[in-house]
């Protein structure tokens, strides 16, 4: 399988690899996929409680090169966005940006799921506050 240059670039130089303290109140953690399926993504965000802007994002991924690239790209894209803006990122945007072939679409779906799961986790921690009152957008 030939990879696009962007996938290769993210694979060789993954952005924002790492771990945030999942116990911290301003951190949201999304862990999606399953080892048996050959792909597990963990995406974490640190959110500014006042502005709701995602100030930091980290990932670790077990999966193919496209899965690694999708999650690396996802961390780049969510950074600087508010949580509600981040929820508008679609897997199809990732497919387009990385020129993923059809068999690799599920890798991008996983990245979208990871963003939603991380934001969902953060919102849960802040249940009762303003952020939680905002409805989570329906999945495309």
């Amino acid at each position, binding site marked *: 399988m030939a990879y696009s240059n962007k996938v290769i670039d993210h694979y060789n130089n993954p952005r924002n690899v790492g771990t945030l303290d999942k116990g911290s109140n301003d951190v949201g953690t999304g*862990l999606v996929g399953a080892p048996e399926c*050959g792909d597990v993504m963990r995406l974490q965000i640190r959110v500014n409680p006042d502005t709701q802007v995602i100030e930091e994002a980290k990932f670790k991924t*077990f999966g193919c090169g496209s*899965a690694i690239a999708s999650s690396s790209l996802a961390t780049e894209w969510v950074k600087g966005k508010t949580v509600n803006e981040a929820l508008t990122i679609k897997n199809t945007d990732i497919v387009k940006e990385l020129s993923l072939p059809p068999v690799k679409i599920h890798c991008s779906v996983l990245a979208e799921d990871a963003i939603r799961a991380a934001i969902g986790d953060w919102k849960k921690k802040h249940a009762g506050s303003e952020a939680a009152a905002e409805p989570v957008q329906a999945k495309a």
Partner: protein
Amino acid sequence: MSTTAVATTTNGNASASVKLPIYMDNHATTPVDPRVLEAMLPYFKNHFGNAASRNHQFGWEAEQAVEKAREQIAKLVGASAKEMIFTSGATESDNLAIKGVAEMYREKGNHIITAATEHKAVLDTCKRLEKNGYRVTYLPVGADGLVSLDDLKRAIDDKTILVTIMYANNEIGVLQPVAEIGKICHEKGVLFHSDAVQAIGKVPVNVIKDNIDLMSITAHKIYGPKGVGALYVRRKNPRVQITAQIDGGGHERGMRSGTLNVPGIVGLGAACEIAMNDMPEESKRLAYLRDKLRKKLEDNLDEIHINGTMEHRLPGNLNMSFVYVEGESLLMGINDIAVSSGSACTSATLEPSYVLKALGLGDDVAHSSIRFGIGRFNTEAEVDYVADKLIDTVKKLRELSPLYEMVKEGIDLKKIQWAAEGH
């Protein structure tokens, strides 16, 4: 993979250079040995005759070359030349053996026994027969990759006509106890076919000692050309008959019609003769290289797992899982090395290797597997390069692996509720 580069590997105090990319996927196919090519060339040029032309020199030359090749092949496996039927490769040989016996012995019975780890050429042929009213038993294998002789004995009944079990597996290289399997078959009056594609020329194979009645061979796994193979069909004790699957001019004593691929057959013959002469030394060298690769990887990486028994295995095969690293991402990191993976992400069906699953490995371990096939033209410097590159890449990917991090923190992955998308 089209560019050729030269890299240097430091191996203790010795430093040797290797040419990139490195081919270490010799179970998929092998390069043609220059000696084999040399033997073949005249049969494309001056000696282009049809081996079935009985009335001129062109035909006689071709026929002579074919008969010489038949001898060379037969000699390598302890058969007689008349017992070799030329085919287009092992897929055809497997089809001809299994369907040919099934059709010929239909009156006697309709039951066939095979194993879960067979090549698709055998499994899919059996599946086809199931649709046509045959019964097939798929024997399981243990974690070592071997079938149990007791299971086999229990599976044979009065309707069993054929047992088909491979000599050496193409993914994990394990050698089945063929001689014992053949003995059981003969005691019960059942024919025994073995797909010996990966074993021929790598380990001593002898159809008499191994009690084999039909055996599939292909040239391209033994440094011969692609698209040519043979089926051994025993002529006495017992005399095996098969129903032809391709009708036509009645070549190969009616068992396989079609004008013979003379240059290919000459190549197959030459490949067998070379393998026979080189095997004692070559198998030692390959085992040394394989063991060196294994040791280097084991000394430098934790959480690795060898798939299948090391005790009964082809000398050039190593199949290892680098747990918590997904196989396709690993291949991407070592893209100047040609090996293959049992990972689902590398397959068109997104299913991990059925051979590894048959060993009882979890899918996660199957996803992390790499098959190394070390062959005649691999050097020690290449093995060092492959080991070093692999160690670096696995370490890098484990930095990226949430699973590796969790395991190192003492989390039991089996206890996590994974929110899996339907994969």
